[in-house]
């Protein structure tokens, strides 16, 4: 297989794993104020992702770094064209990260309120804007010989916004399932009830997204050419139905895993449709950034393939191991007994 194709798949995997993992952090952050009725519940919510959110976020840095190393032209243009959107995402991620660490460091209600707001902003806004950004990538950016002709506002077109809302709902559902799995008592119950309600909104949006994609993008062209690829969106749909089934029998861990598959497959539905583009041009397809016209040299791709094939499995192994150490659901005692908790 050509190295560009290997890297296209790796590129997709890195983004998909990022959204699958940081997705529930975003969801948990969005639900933090809504579900947490008192200080202990709020602490349970942030502490449920405490041991893992930072490791999850690194998938984003790796996805960005891999884009830089493997497809430098795409990295350069994607990041400079989407300047303002990425800037806001960045501010959100910065605030979210420090909010987790600083929230519990001063014993004052107004202090906590500031960081609670930061947790919400830093989760909701990146979730929305990542969706908007990917929606716009799916439909192509207005770019030609003179560069980019869009603005922050032009990203907020109907399809971009729909994708943004879709991402927010997908991550919120994911976060609700995480909390249903990770917390007990009333809080866990409330998260479970919410996940049931949210599912209908998510499902409706998913259907709208799949239909609108046919009109707003050229993503389905690849699928029509190769029917077997329909397995990807089909798995997304099946796993989304799986979420519903597992939630209704109160199997929240299985529902959460099912939701992981949904997110992974939704991202891959888009990625598969893009091939061989990384970012299509919406005005002149000869200016689309493809995996061939924007890639690094084969020499660099070979080295990076070696690095990734050796180290990413190691990363996955120790991340799974750490998830397993913290697999039990979190109880108030766990927080009280560990003074280092958030």
């Amino acid at each position, binding site marked *: 297989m050509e190295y560009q194709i290997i890297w296209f798949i790796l590129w997709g995997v890195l983004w998909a794993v990022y959204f699958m993992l940081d997705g529930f952090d975003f969801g948990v952050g969005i639900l933090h104020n809504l579900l947490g009725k008192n200080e202990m519940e709020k602490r349970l919510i942030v*502490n449920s992702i*405490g*041991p893992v*959110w*930072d*490791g999850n*976020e*690194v998938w*984003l*840095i*790796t996805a*960005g*770094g*891999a884009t*830089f*190393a*493997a497809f*430098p*032209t795409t*990295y*350069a*243009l994607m*990041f*400079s*064209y989407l*300047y*303002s959107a*990425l*800037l806001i995402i*960045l*501010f959100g*991620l*910065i605030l979210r*990260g*420090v909010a*987790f*660490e*600083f929230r519990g*460091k*001063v014993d004052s209600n107004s202090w906590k309120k500031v960081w609670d707001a930061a947790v919400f902003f830093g989760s909701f806004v990146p979730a929305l804007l990542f969706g908007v950004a990917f929606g716009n990538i799916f439909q192509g950016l207005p770019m030609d010989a003179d*560069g*980019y002709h869009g603005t922050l506002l032009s990203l907020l077109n109907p399809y971009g916004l729909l994708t943004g809302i879709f991402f927010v709902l997908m991550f919120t559902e994911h976060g609700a399932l995480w909390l249903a799995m990770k917390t007990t008592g009333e809080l866990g119950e409330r998260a479970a009830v919410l996940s049931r309600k949210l599912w209908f909104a998510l499902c409706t949006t998913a259907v709208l997204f799949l239909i609108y994609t046919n009109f707003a993008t050229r993503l389905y062209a690849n699928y029509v050419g190769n029917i077997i690829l329909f397995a990807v969106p089909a798995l997304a749909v099946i796993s989304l139905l799986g979420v519903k089934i597992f939630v209704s029998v109160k199997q929240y861990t299985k529902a959460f895993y099912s939701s992981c598959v949904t997110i992974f497959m939704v991202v891959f539905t888009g990625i598969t449709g893009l091939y061989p583009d990384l970012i299509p041009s919406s005005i002149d397809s000869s200016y689309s950034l493809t995996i061939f016209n924007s890639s*690094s040299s084969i*020499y*660099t791709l070979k*080295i*990076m393939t070696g*690095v*990734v094939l050796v180290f990413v499995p190691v*990363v996955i192994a*120790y*991340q799974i191991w*750490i998830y397993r*150490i*913290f697999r039990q659901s979190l109880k108030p005692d766990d927080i009280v*007994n*560990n*003074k*280092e*908790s958030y």
Partner: protein
Amino acid sequence: MDALTLSRLQFAATSMFHFIFVPLTLGLSILVAYMETRYVRTNDEMYLKMTKFWGKLFLINFAIGVVTGITLEFQFGMNWAEYSKYVGDIFGAPLAIEATVAFFLESSFIGLWIFGWNKVSKKLHALAIWLVAVATNLSALWILLANGWMQHPVGFVIRNNRAEMVDFTAMLTNSYGLLKFFHTVFSGYVVAAFFVMGISAFHLLKKNNPALFKASFRTAALFGLVSSLAVFIIGDFHAAEVARTQPTKFAAMESVWDTQKAAPYNLLLIPDPANERNTVEALGIPRLLSFLAFHDGNAEVKGLKEFSKDERPPVIPVLLSFRGMAALGILFMLLACIGSIIALRGRLETNPLFLRIMLYALPLPYIAAQLGWIVAEVGRQPWIVYGVLKTADAVSKNVSPLQVLTSLIGFTLLYGFLGVIDIYLLFKYARKGPDDDLSTIIKTARGQEV
């Protein structure tokens, strides 16, 4: 102002802010790991208290270091798209490797360390912080190899209108990058050593927990002594490497205008860049500059006049930063040496004056680290990749000055806010001292035996 100037200002502001937090992380991770290892070995609860006290300060500092690092990775693409396109084939690799090899390790195991006190064995818990320390230093290696390549590009050819990598090993073994790595991490250890000595001095002056803070001070003093010597010795080789590979930077560091053999080192210099000369050159030590540059007292040192005006860096900021950094470096060796002697003799508490000096010396290594980066980055101008690509040709073409101005204001406000909060929290927890509530600590300690 144009997008270029604003982008440069933004990169300077965001990377300098990031580098307030990084050096402490580099060194304090090792010190905390050492303290926890002592606890595991001796079972002495004082070391547990020490680990937790310094660990808390470590985490407050670490949080901002991590989140502000993402900005830097994004900015290469956002503001420096032409640069990223031109050198991404070779520059992207170390960044991606840094994330894969180091960031994952660091961010995954810091979670285990913070939340794992009651979950894993004592040894495994100590291993977690050691892995964080290794990962942090490993991340410095990759980013400094990347920066080393910008300073002294190797292992590439210009092909397809860009720099393409042809020799990965050359980048890995680039002596510029390796010297920069060692110089920088040891300077981080000095920051951490002075941080621990400064705060320990504060508590020793107040007679809080003297046993714990004497032990902390002693460890930090020895660590600081070794590190400050290493920074200085490596710095000497680093300067020679600069003279060999970046003659314009070296000339600016010492304000040398005319090429000369057996060049003296002028202790007193007042440059006059407009007239390409020095108004004052006094207290010269014969042949010393030639010796520093090439380890040969008769060697020829190139002057700035050898290079056309549009290939010279600004002299005054580079000269002042270099001299400031070097003078501080000497001071650190001295203070760490005195500190080690007093601490080893057990006479810290009877030397309040020295303790007070060490308290106020706390910010100095931070300043030296920033000055060092000014020498490195301003001294490289007008190049972004020395001799290959100019900074002016590297900026994004599609980003408007208004966009950059907005983001610069945004960063200034956000970082200003975070900086104030972080310093407030560091003060609060540093002043508070270790947790004396032994009951919970013993409970936790027992919990770990599971």
